[in-house]
């Protein structure tokens, strides 16, 4: 039996420009031994939830710079639940105003990371939350 790999989608929802940050995170997760499904720019919440289902991921990482997080994130969470994927952890990276963070966490987001967060922090959090949710499933 092969060890269970952590599978993560890294996606860039919304219409804003570049995915440099998302790529840095994707590479760091790869280097931490995870399988990263990279879906690229301008993903709709529907596309992200569908990819999460087909790829049977443990976690979804969203990179959002546009300020549209309060619209996009709840929608992704809602679609994941509708898919039967409430166990999938959602992490947000990008520019998120401090006052929005508590609301995002309350709505079910597992972590929010501003620019300059060490990738080690993100890796640790993903590992912890995924192993906790696998333990729950036993």
């Amino acid at each position, binding site marked *: *039996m*092969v*060890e*269970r*790999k952590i*599978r993560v989608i890294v996606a860039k929802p919304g219409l804003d420009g570049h995915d440099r940050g998302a790529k840095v995170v*994707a*590479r760091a*997760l*790869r*280097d*931490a*031994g*995870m*399988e*990263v*499904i*990279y*879906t*690229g720019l301008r993903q*709709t919440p*529907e*596309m992200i939830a*569908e*990819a999460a*289902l*087909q*790829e*049977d991921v443990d976690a979804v990482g969203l990179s959002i710079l546009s300020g549209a997080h309060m619209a996009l994130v709840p929608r992704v969470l809602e679609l994941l639940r509708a*898919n*039967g*994927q409430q*166990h999938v952890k959602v992490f947000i990276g990008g520019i998120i105003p401090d006052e929005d963070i508590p609301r995002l966490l309350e709505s079910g987001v597992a972590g929010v990371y501003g620019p300059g967060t060490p990738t080690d922090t993100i890796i640790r959090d993903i590992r912890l939350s995924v192993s906790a*949710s696998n333990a*729950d*499933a036993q």
Partner: protein
Amino acid sequence: MISSELDIPQAVLGGNRLALARLITQIENGTPEGYDALRRLFSHTGKAHLVGITGAPGTGKSSLVNQLAHFYRNPTPGMTPARVGIVAVDPSSPFSGGAILGDRVRMRDLAGDPGVFIRSMASRGSLGGLAAATSGVVQALDAAGFDVILIETVGAGQAEVEIARLAHTTLVVEAPGLGDDIQAIKAGILEIADILVINKADRPGVENTERALRNMLQLAHPLRRDFLSPADAVHHTDLVHKAIPSPGDEPNIWSPPVLRTVATEGIGIQELHSSIQNHRKHLSESGEWQRREQSRMETELSMIVQERLMRRWRDGLPAGRYQSVLEAVYMRQISPWQAADRLITGDEP
């Protein structure tokens, strides 16, 4: 989490996509549940047309898969849309074991279509362009009722012969400008091609590429193809060329067409699709479909047996035995052949 009462194979047969995704993970991870499910699903497999897409990195394999799948879903009027499963393999990092699976980036046009299921796979240390579990994953999609399964290989550009063993129809994708005298194209990869695609035909140099390919093809393409059975293969990637009949002798010879496409714009896709359909027809009319199926199953069985025997034998070795014999080889006291004799027969020649 899927509730533990859910009968995954049953749900997969009933079209439950979440169950299918979960089953694929079990197969990839080699879990007992996965093998058990495949055992139950096996009699439902064998219906899908398996189409492999291989070729050097960046030649446009994923873009072609996107267009082809889109065409299967929206064919010319009068044709029934086929349900399309896609397996896209990318390499695992040999250092971390992680992987970046980026093929979906090019498959945006398929989003939201319930008749399509895309799964990315990491190669997980396998070297032949596929992952060890790819064949099991393809069986799962087949059992789930996908009519066509498009399998994109890693794209090392080398003879990724495993895809030719797995697929009924293999497309080899080239693009202009990749070492134009086609030093880059190894005869080995042409040998496995049922259809040659020159993608990026909007790029300069396409005539040269096509000429070079056609020239090489005259030399490289086997008139008939039989895989050596793994039992007699010296090297399991060898293809045997049977006594070559002259083309007139054998009515059912397939000579691989060379087609131009521009995947980013959907140009040449309809022709590629009909070429794939023609090949499928050729396979069934010539009896080749049956032969390829048999040869695939033989390979698969033989690989499973090898793996099991190996594991059983390893488990039966006294602790430290392997290491001490290996040590003797390191020290050049015995050759690897002697070492194997010692390990297998227990003798000390």
